[in-house]
């Protein structure tokens, strides 16, 4: 053993190894607290996110339409994108009534397939067409509603609008159970080239609470005076209310559980420090300063907190994953942000648990402590 080895760290190590049952109990308490906090935090954040994603599946919550028979000014999309922010999804739609080869009228819609796919992920589509893969000269890729299919003969078919005939090819079929089923969807660019018409409707899916969506609605109205801006109101309100209520429920149980665990840890660690009051008094008698003894106890608490946080984070992430898989059929990945949060929480509880008895011991005479009361 070398001289330099004798330090507060050395004393702490010896104390922890010697009192290994006690140390393990404290470590266990701190691991459990960290695991519980990690699990709850991960579940909270992840479920919160998924809750939003699930509600998003219901589609747009704001719809912009041009006045009857007209189209939206060309800069509308850019304006809306600037106001609604990058978090919002925007899908343009243009509509026209064309004729099949039999002369039957059918509604053709031009849209942005990628955007529609993101917003209306609940649409049952056999295979979303890739608008980018279109080659000039070949038939236009179309997504055909299941009811519209009955008016067509085969996968390749022509449609006529205003005397212009367009060759189309059925790339995909679509079923929504609503009006979309009797429509034919083609890329907006091809639609505009064919009919000379641009988008008349923008569907917007904005995230956030009911109040935030309401606010966005007002701003859109103010910025686009000639355009009709509607909320898909029912959805907006219920989404906000359910998300808010679920979130506050999760938050309050998180706080409650954390408090309970925190108190248990506090009790365990406080007892662990108090039972060493004789050591404390001996060191005082040997001339240690209050600082040195305090550091000794705090160092030990911090070490336990650190180890507990690391073990608890792993355990908690695993738990969250398990809970997600078993109960929600969702993949809940580890939340790295939980690691520093849990470490801080553990350190706070551990240092409090060591610091409080230190303050009590400090006010007592060493002689009293040495008597072992």
């Amino acid at each position, binding site marked *: 053993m070398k001289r330099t080895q*004798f330090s507060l760290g050395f004393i702490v190590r010896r104390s922890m190894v010697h*009192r290994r049952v006690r140390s393990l109990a404290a470590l266990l308490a701190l691991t459990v607290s960290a695991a519980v906090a990690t699990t709850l935090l991960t579940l909270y954040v992840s479920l919160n996110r998924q809750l939003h994603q699930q509600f998003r599946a219901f589609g747009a919550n704001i719809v912009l339409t041009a006045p009857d028979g007209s189209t939206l000014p060309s800069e509308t999309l850019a304006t809306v994108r600037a106001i609604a922010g990058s978090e919002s999804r925007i899908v343009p739609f243009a509509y026209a009534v064309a004729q099949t080869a039999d002369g039957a009228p059918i509604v053709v819609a031009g849209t942005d397939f990628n955007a529609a796919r993101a917003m209306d992920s609940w649409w049952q589509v056999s295979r979303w067409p890739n608008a980018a893969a279109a080659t000039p000269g070949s038939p236009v890729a179309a997504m055909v509603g299941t009811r519209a299919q009955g008016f067509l003969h085969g996968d390749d078919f022509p449609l006529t609008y205003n005397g212009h005939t367009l060759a189309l090819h059925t790339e995909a079929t679509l079923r929504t159970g609503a009006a979309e089923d009797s429509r034919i969807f083609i890329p907006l660019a091809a639609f505009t080239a064919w009919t000379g018409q641009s988008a008349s409707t923008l569907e917007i899916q904005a995230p956030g609470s009911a109040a935030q969506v309401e606010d966005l609605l007002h701003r859109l109205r103010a910025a686009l005076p000639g355009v009709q801006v509607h909320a898909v109101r029912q959805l907006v309100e219920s989404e906000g209310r359910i998300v808010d209520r679920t979130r506050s429920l999760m938050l309050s149980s998180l706080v409650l559980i954390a408090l309970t665990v925190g108190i248990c840890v506090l009790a365990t660690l406080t007892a662990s420090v108090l039972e060493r009051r004789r*050591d404390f008094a001996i060191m005082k008698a*040997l001339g240690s*300063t209050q600082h040195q003894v305090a550091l000794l106890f705090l160092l030990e608490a911090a070490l336990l907190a650190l180890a507990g946080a690391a073990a608890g984070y792993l355990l908690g992430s695993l738990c969250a994953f398990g809970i997600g898989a078993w109960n929600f059929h969702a993949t809940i990945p580890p939340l790295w942000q939980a690691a520093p949060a849990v470490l801080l929480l553990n350190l706070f509880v551990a240092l409090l648990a060591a610091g409080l008895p230190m303050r009590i011991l400090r006010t007592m005479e060493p*002689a009293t402590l040495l008597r072992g009361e």
Partner: protein
Amino acid sequence: MATILQSAVGSEALIHLHGLTREYASRAGAVRALDQVTLTIERGEWVAVMGPSGSGKSTLVNILGCLDQPTHGSVRIAGTDVHQLSRQELDRFRAETIGFIFQQFHLIPYLTALENILLAQYFHSMTDEDEARRALASVGLGDRATHLPSQLSGGEQQRVCIARALINQPPILLADEPTGNLDAANQEIVQEHLRTLHRAGHTIVMVTHDPEMASLADRTVELHHGRIAAERRADLTAQK
């Protein structure tokens, strides 16, 4: 004349206890462990404290070592009223001035014999392992350096405690029955340590039940029910 003597720190007695009373409140009523004890100890003096069990000897030594506070009365050590010191100053004061040999040894259970001595060095100034080993060897425990207190006999623990108290060469050594658990040979070793310390000018306050140990001291103070019942000077009885 008296005021001049008292203000000159160098000539003042090292320890002044005045009207020292220590009461313990308990459910059965207050216990008065010390009752109006007034005692002066000169620099370099070796004082033995004797008296029956429960007469307040340990209480007196604890108060002297600033490990306990009197209910009434004052403690002046080296011109300092101990009561006036802040807790931090008291910590420093203890580290620099006082060495303890406890009646119950009070070794740190998870540190070895050697490390218990290193601990005292560490809190005092800096550790010196060679010196600590020599101290252990000087109480006949050179081969037990790596043993934990629980692996040592009572007498061996007591000797570690003595080596620990002496390692920093404290100006004041407080020894509560330093030879209570020792055989004749080890008692002789400890006596020799104390004599050497005394010759070097250190002040020793020693509690003992053993008249032979007490005879080594310059003065013996006899406590009874927390009061000083008798005082004897060795030089008066032994020399003339």
